[in-house]
């Protein structure tokens, strides 16, 4: 009981650990995926940042450029930032530094976006001015020729210097040139021109120079600021923080996973060792039990052998006794030598189921013309049946004694009633305290050859008879038994009288023949089959008929054992 509890407890702990392991690995898997996504976002941000840098450089370098490429990168980066900010982990205090770094990057990027927006404005203005000033300078100088002023040479020099300085300034991002531009603006501005055309060109030139003077330092400053924005640096740092924080976290998780797996391994190992030891112990117990059982078997076999020997001895003794009893029973059955005197032909089948039986028959000659035949089927069979037959024999002797002395009539009905009374009296069946409830079924036939009559009374035992040229008939008798506690002591049995005018065959049988089980359906033999044998073979010699009755009985019985004692008597009058 205790060992079962231990196993259940171990399985419960293992199940719990397995659930923990599953949840843990699920969380770990989720975390790894999350890390991958997060890392992908960082790489995307880095990539878009680099693309933005490239496009920005192109904008700076090319005279004109498609600003969509820059705006598209900015839009993508903004989307990336929004996406990365939505990661759950950033709400975790453990990743506070990572969150701060991302927010810093966002802040830097917003700043950079604003700077780029402004730069695109200033860039356009500066580029246009840088592009226009040399063009206007040429137009201006051409117009000066027609104006013929003395300072043409100096102006030409100034205009050339402005054009070259613009290129130098633009390519070197040197704002020191601004002071020189201012000087030249003053010089050009101080000139007075007569024609409207020159005056207009002078105005446009001065305006563009003013644009350069005002916007170029802003242009340079913005470039530097954009260059100095820490977005690239921040994203790099974010990546580092991510690796340090997330990887550290992952390492921790893996460490815990290892511990958990180790614990589970040792528990499983412990359970296996425990189970093996338990199985070994159980085996040893079983072996011992097996040995004990073998010893017990040996002892039992010896005892059985001894008892069998004893039983065989007892059985032999009993069998001997019964065999002897059978001799006694056979001795009380009437002899047959006088039958041939009374009957033209006859046969008797008396076949107890065991060595002795409950069936018995009596054939008693009253004189040369009168004969009484009795067929008795006592309660039970074997030894108890035999005892009853002895009792029946005693009463039968009294009846014949009384017949001899004329105390009773030669009435089969009265003879049955006599039996009934005497048996009940002998066995005290009239007393309510009586424990005996035995008796018999039977039939008594009285034959008077002189008067050519046959009287019959039956207690649940029929009489079959076949007169030459007529159908087989059956007299059922009464459906009452002789003896038994419930039988009526004063019951008067019917007495049938048959006039024998022609040779007639008579048959009496106990229920042992009729009730024998057999056939394909294991049904009783039955009166119908019994009658058909008579109808079929009545004209054959009775010795042959006996053989047929025995053969038909055995054939029908097949392998079934005989269920009851069998008595059949056939005779021809």
């Amino acid at each position: 009981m205790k060992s079962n509890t231990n196993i259940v407890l171990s399985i419960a702990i293992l199940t719990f650990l397995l659930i923990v392991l599953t949840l843990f690995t699920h969380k770990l898997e989720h975390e790894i995926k999350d890390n991958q996504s997060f890392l992908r976002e960082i790489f995307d941000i880095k990539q878009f940042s680099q693309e933005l840098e490239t496009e920005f450089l192109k904008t700076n370098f090319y005279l004109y450029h498609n600003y969509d490429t820059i705006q598209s990168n900015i839009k993508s980066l903004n989307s990336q930032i929004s996406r990365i900010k939505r990661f759950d982990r950033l709400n975790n205090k453990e990743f506070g530094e990572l969150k701060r770094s991302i927010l810093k990057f966002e802040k830097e990027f917003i700043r950079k976006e604003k700077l780029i927006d402004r730069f695109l404005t200033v860039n356009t203005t500066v580029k246009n001015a840088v592009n226009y000033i040399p063009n206007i300078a040429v137009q201006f100088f051409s117009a000066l020729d027609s104006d013929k002023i003395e300072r043409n040479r100096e102006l030409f020099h100034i205009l050339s210097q402005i054009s070259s300085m613009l290129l130098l300034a633009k390519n070197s991002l040197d704002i020191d040139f601004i002071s020189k531009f201012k000087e030249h603006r003053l010089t050009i501005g101080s000139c007075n021109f007569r024609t409207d055309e020159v005056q207009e060109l002078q105005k446009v030139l001065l305006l563009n120079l003013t644009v350069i003077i005002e916007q170029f330092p802003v242009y340079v400053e913005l470039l530097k600021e954009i260059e100095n924005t820490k977005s690239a640096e921040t994203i790099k740092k974010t990546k580092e923080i991510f690796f340090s924080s997330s990887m550290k976290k992952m390492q921790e998780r893996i460490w815990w996973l290892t511990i958990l797996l180790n614990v589970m391994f040792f528990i499983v190992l412990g359970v296996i060792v425990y189970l093996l030891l338990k199985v070994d112990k159980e085996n040893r117990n079983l072996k011992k039990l097996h040995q004990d059982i073998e010893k017990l078997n040996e002892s039992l076999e010896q005892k059985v052998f001894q008892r069998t020997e004893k039983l065989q001895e007892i059985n032999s003794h009993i069998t001997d006794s019964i065999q002897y009893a059978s001799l006694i029973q056979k001795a009380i059955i009437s002899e047959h030598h006088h039958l041939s005197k009374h009957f033209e032909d006859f046969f008797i089948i008396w076949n107890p189921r065991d060595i002795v039986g409950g069936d018995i028959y009596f054939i008693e000659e009253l004189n040369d013309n009168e004969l009484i035949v009795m067929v008795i089927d006592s309660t039970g069979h074997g030894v108890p049946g035999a005892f009853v037959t002895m009792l029946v024999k005693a009463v039968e002797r009294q009846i014949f004694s009384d017949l001899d002395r004329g105390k009773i009539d030669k009435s089969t009905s009265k003879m049955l009633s006599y039996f009934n009374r005497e048996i009940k009296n002998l066995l005290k069946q009239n007393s309510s305290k009586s424990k005996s409830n035995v008796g018999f079924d039977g039939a008594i036939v009285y034959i008077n050859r002189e008067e050519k009559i046959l009287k019959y009374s039956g207690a649940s035992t029929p009489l079959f008879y076949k007169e030459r040229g007529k159908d087989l008939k059956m007299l059922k008798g009464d459906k009452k038994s002789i003896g038994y506690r419930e039988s009526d002591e004063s019951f008067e049995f019917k007495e049938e009288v048959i006039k024998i005018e022609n040779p007639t065959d008579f048959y009496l049988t106990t229920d042992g023949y009729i009730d024998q089980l057999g056939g394909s359906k294991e049904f009783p033999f039955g009166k119908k089959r019994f009658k058909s044998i008579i109808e079929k073979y009545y004209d054959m010699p009775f010795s042959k008929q006996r053989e047929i009755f025995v053969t038909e009985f055995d054939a029908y019985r097949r392998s079934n054992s005989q269920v009851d004692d069998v008595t059949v008597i056939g005779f021809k009058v």
Partner: protein
Amino acid sequence: MIKIITIYILILTALNSNEPISPIPLKVDFDKEKAKLGYYLFNELKLSRDKTVSCSTCHLLGAGGADVTPKSFGIYRTKTAMNTPTVLNSMFNFRQFWNGRAKDLRQQAVDVIHNPREMGMNVTLVEQRLNLDEFYKRLFKDTYKKSFVHFDDVIDAIVEFEKSLFTPNSRFDNYLRGYKEALSKEELEGYKLFKIFGCIMCHNGINVGGNSYQKMGTVIPFTNDENKHFNDNNSSRPNSGAYTTDMHHSEDRFQITGKVYDKNVYKVPSLRNIELTAPYLHTGELLTLKEMIVDMGYHNLGVHIGDEDSSKIEAFLKTLTGETPKFLRDFGN
């Protein structure tokens, strides 16, 4: 198959070209069911407080998606601050409104509906009115599978409709895609002048503008005199003085950033379909393309673009007119 190969070759050509302007895509993804609903909402007067204006009151879909008047009128006949920019191709702009205060179409739609001078509505009122209208309730239920009309879905539908308003296959786009004969000699010269004069510096990209903020009057300061042309007796335009107006300030970047250098700085308008979207400039003060070209050259480049050159540039600008959006054509417009 041949069509697909041709389109593929054209796309490759376009990708490989170094032109600072890129063609409008032939296909833009949008939800047609939502766009259909958006179309009704775009024309719905119930979306304004006094039920007198809808989106299409200012964005006339038959007039290049812009207004024909210099300044549009909002609820209670209040004149708005700026000339209405076109709604066509607006999804390609990097920001919305002249001062770029909306980062996308969604914010733009929300801003206009809430603007007290334009539609003067709020979320509750919009939902209240549309939920009382069985027509919209049914449409929203079919489209958004909701029995209640939500403000967010109203905006979403309008945005989906606006995404459908792209105008591909302009002659210039065909030129960019490799059909060199799509432009006449004059138009091609106009494009070259467009680059030489530096217009391209600001007007580049898919929308030929709409991707940066620039100062109006970079070289020669621009004065905001909105009636300087409409007061001209020769003008065919109605005198704006006939309408009540309550504001004269310009919605420039300065209104957003508060930085002095952002005064008179605006989002560069798109030049797509420009021949259809007169009057021009943020003030709506110029009636013709040529006037606009000269004016821009004067203020932003400091040059006077001559008549011949401006004609050529005008001819080029007219090649930027694309097809009427397919969705509108299919819808019976």
